[in-house]
């Protein structure tokens, strides 16, 4: 990183954990934030351009690939891409059939979208941690900007906006289907009249309210936490570079080992997000008592 400022470990980590935020700064006006403090000052009405770009790109990739297969799908002998897509669809369908007992045509496509999209977003974590940010910095430098103040986070799931966005959508679906299947009364009754009966109403509301609200929270934080921690370890290992040759080799080996282990994590997190969504929606569809 060519920069006029002295590169410190703290600065390097900070740089990697700052989004490319576009918004209106109270003092500098409309534009990209030059530091995380700037981004914070922009408040709610700002957009993390990198998160939106990569998540929409990857979601588009997923839709484009699956749509391409779906258009040419044949009930005869499948080939190439169709085999792959059918494998995933079968896997998702098995999970939905295993956990979801009501009838809803939306749940399986929802599960597929979550699994594929989250997996692709997590997969960005396996790209070398400096590759895209460095290239982007060089690219921007062509236009005269200082690369040190250009941020880029390539893994959308390390941005809580992305994970909370998905979790909240799932949460609204849970609320919608709870009310749709059980009626407003049924849903409120579920929240207030159990497990202690109508005389323990405050306790019931507290318990059920927490369990309801913990659903999107745990969904979002689990994914975010895992990916954020994984990204952080890649960044920390990357700090080893630039020292002696021994450190470089050690760093390379560690990156490789962590990346191999991370393959498991990114798949598992995508799978968990999908399964929990299915389970939550199943609970929303069921009369418990």
């Amino acid at each position: 990183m060519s920069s006029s400022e002295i590169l410190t470990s703290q600065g390097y980590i900070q740089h990697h954990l700052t989004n490319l935020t576009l918004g209106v700064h109270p003092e500098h006006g409309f534009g990209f934030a030059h530091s995380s403090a700037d981004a914070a000052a922009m408040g709610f009405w700002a957009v993390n351009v990198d998160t939106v770009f990569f998540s929409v790109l990857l979601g588009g990739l997923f839709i484009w690939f699956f749509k391409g297969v779906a258009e040419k799908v044949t009930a005869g002998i499948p080939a190439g891409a169709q085999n792959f897509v059918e494998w995933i669809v079968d896997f998702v369908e098995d999970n939905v059939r295993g956990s979801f007992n009501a009838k809803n045509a939306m749940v399986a496509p929802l599960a597929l979208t979550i699994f594929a999209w989250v997996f692709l977003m997590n997969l960005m974590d396996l790209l070398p941690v400096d590759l895209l940010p460095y290239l982007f910095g060089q690219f921007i430098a062509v236009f005269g900007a200082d690369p040190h103040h250009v941020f880029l986070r390539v893994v959308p799931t390390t941005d809580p906006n992305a994970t909370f966005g998905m979790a909240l959508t799932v949460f609204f679906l849970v609320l919608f289907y709870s009310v749709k299947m059980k009626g407003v009364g049924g849903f409120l009754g579920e929240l207030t009249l159990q497990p202690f009966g109508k005389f323990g109403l405050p306790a019931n509301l507290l318990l059920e309210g927490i369990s309801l609200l913990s659903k999107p929270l745990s969904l979002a934080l689990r994914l975010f936490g895992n990916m954020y921690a994984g990204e952080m370890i890649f960044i920390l290992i990357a700090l080893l570079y630039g020292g002696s040759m021994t450190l470089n080799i050690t760093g390379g080996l560690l990156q490789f080992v962590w990346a191999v282990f991370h393959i498991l994590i990114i798949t598992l997190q995508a799978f968990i997000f999908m399964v929990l969504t299915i389970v939550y929606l199943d609970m929303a569809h069921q009369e418990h008592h």
Partner: protein
Amino acid sequence: MNINLTLLIQMISFAVFVWFCMQYVWPPIVTALAERKTKITEGLAAAERGHQERARGEQHAQALLTEAKATAAEIVTQAQKRATEIVEEAKDDARAEGGRLVAAAQAEIERETNRAREELRERVAALAIAAAEKILHKEIDVDTHRSLVDTFAKQL
């Protein structure tokens, strides 16, 4: 790391992707999978039916073959019997013909013999009468002694 407008954009794009997936991606693939399942089930059933059909056909062919063999054997037996009969008939005919020819020949011989004997007898009678005439000259009247001469001739 701030919660900002990105959250809403994420929610909207997520919803759009899910809607798109639900509309254009999931149904054709799942339909194709179900269709293939049906096809395979039908194919297996057809194979099973074909198997049974073949077994039945083989059985039928076997039965036909056995029947044909039996018929053929019967025909051969009959033909042999008929051939024997024809030979026997021919033999009988030949034997009968031979017998008849022999009988005809014998009858002919008999007839010739009788005729010769008759002629001889008449000649002997005439000869005897002529001789007697010569011996007795007029003493013997032909008409008177005719019966005597005849008796004599018959004894020859």
